[in-house]
């Protein structure tokens, strides 16, 4: 993992930033999110992929690409979480000071 992080730090940083941007937008986005049911299915799918990666059942380059994809997805999720959390903090502060939400 350390080797992957060192070798692909640029791509992981890009995924983190992408996630940060998406998380920032998601707090004030008014569209509909995915349903709980879809979330569960996606979570199970991702968990299955993680299990496949950990158990090394996918051989060769496909195995590497799976590891890379999961690492980038993980960085994306972290970025999303940080982005949403920070944006929520900004929105909450603005709401407390009387400014209309959705603008910063």
């Amino acid at each position: 993992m350390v080797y992957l992080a060192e070798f692909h730090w640029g791509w992981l940083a890009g995924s983190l930033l992408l996630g940060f941007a998406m998380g920032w937008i998601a707090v004030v986005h008014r569209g509909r999110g995915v349903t709980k049911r879809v979330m569960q299915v996606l979570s199970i799918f991702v968990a299955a992929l993680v299990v496949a990666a950990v158990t090394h059942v996918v051989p060769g380059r496909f195995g590497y690409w799976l590891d890379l994809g999961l690492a980038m997805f993980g960085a994306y999720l972290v970025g999303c979480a940080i982005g949403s959390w920070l944006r929520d903090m900004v929105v909450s502060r603005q709401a407390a000071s009387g400014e209309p939400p959705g603008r910063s």
Partner: protein
Amino acid sequence: MRGLFRWSSKWWPGVIPLVILWALAAWTTTGPLEADLSAHADAALKGSVLDKTTISAAGRDITFSAEAFSEQERSSALASVEAVPGVRLVNDHTALVAEARPFVWTIERDVGKVTLSGNAPLPVVRNKLLDAARAIFSGIDIADHMNLSRGAPPRFETAAALLIGEIGKLKTGKATMSDMTVTLSGMARELGGREAIAAALKNLPEGYSVTNDIHAPPYIFEANKDPVAATLTLTGYVPDNAVHAAIVASAGRKFGEKVVDKLKASLGAPAGFDAVVTRALGSLSRLSTGRLVVSDRDVELSGDALYDAAARQLRADLPKDLPRGWQAKLEVSVKPAAAPVDPAVCQQLFADLLGKRTIQFETGQATLDPDSIGLLDRLTETALRCPTATIEIVGYTDSDGDPSFNQTLSERRAQAVVDYLVKAGMPADRFKPVGYGSAQPIASNDTDEGKAKNRRIDFIVRQ
């Protein structure tokens, strides 16, 4: 936390550019990653002794194939590759190097090429043997057909290096080591090469056995008797300085002529060489003109005997006297008989012969010394030239010892000479043996030189 869950339902649009990013990352990093992991795996195997090593990467998985020289080496190499950072899986295609039974190694020298083949235990040993061969056969093409195998005998490298050195002494040849049995064949470059190699192979490590089938150029000794120049020329080889001196001294006693010594000392003489050469020189001394060639264990004697009976005796005696394994080839003819002379000339001829040399006997006995046989043949030839003369054979001794013993000894010695002459085919009544003991000395008996002169046989021709 609930907020995070709510917001996460709206994170999915970012997955689309993330997938694009992932595809780009996979596209651009796969090659460099595989190259990086292969290089690190190669570096991790630097200290391992392996054969036929190949490393290939597919993603983060390494396919590692190699042949190791021990199970410990194999598992250690595998662990080194598995420990390379970033490697996910190692596909283990390693095995142990095949074991050779028997473990055979060969070096073969042709005229312009040296070939090393068979089995070598380790790459480093193989390289050392090649280096040793290059050092010894500089300028000659070295072909390496060695395979790496397990199962080498103890101290293989020492034994093989020694054999490379010894094959360097051959014109052409081959050395094969099968486990601890060494077989050498071929032709040595120099006389004595076989013996030199046999001596060197005694330094093989303990437990090794050797079959030496090396041949060397023939070991030649040659003696040419030239009656015109009155010389005996010795050429060729003798085993050492002691034998050299003994042969030259023996030739001096047998021939009484000038010995031209061109002998050289060299190893490689067949067993019994000095005894055979001494015996064959005795036969040569009976020829008027002749040549003796001793080549390995073949003795060739050619020339002219002084009379018929001498030729017959030579043909019969020399082959019989040679040790087992020696061959004699005689081409002895008889010198045309010299013209008869009157008794006075005959007497002069006897005096000339006995003036230069004396007939020798065993000390205190009446047995003719083999060194005097050439002189006796010349005396016989002279006696044959005056067939009508009666000859008195007179024996004398020095003054040492009892006078009656000396008297008897001188008579017996004179009789021994008569017997020799009769054996040559002349009638016994032509010869009268007489002994005077120590009477009638011709020199002082006070010195060894004088005594030697007094111990003599004289031929006196009676009408």
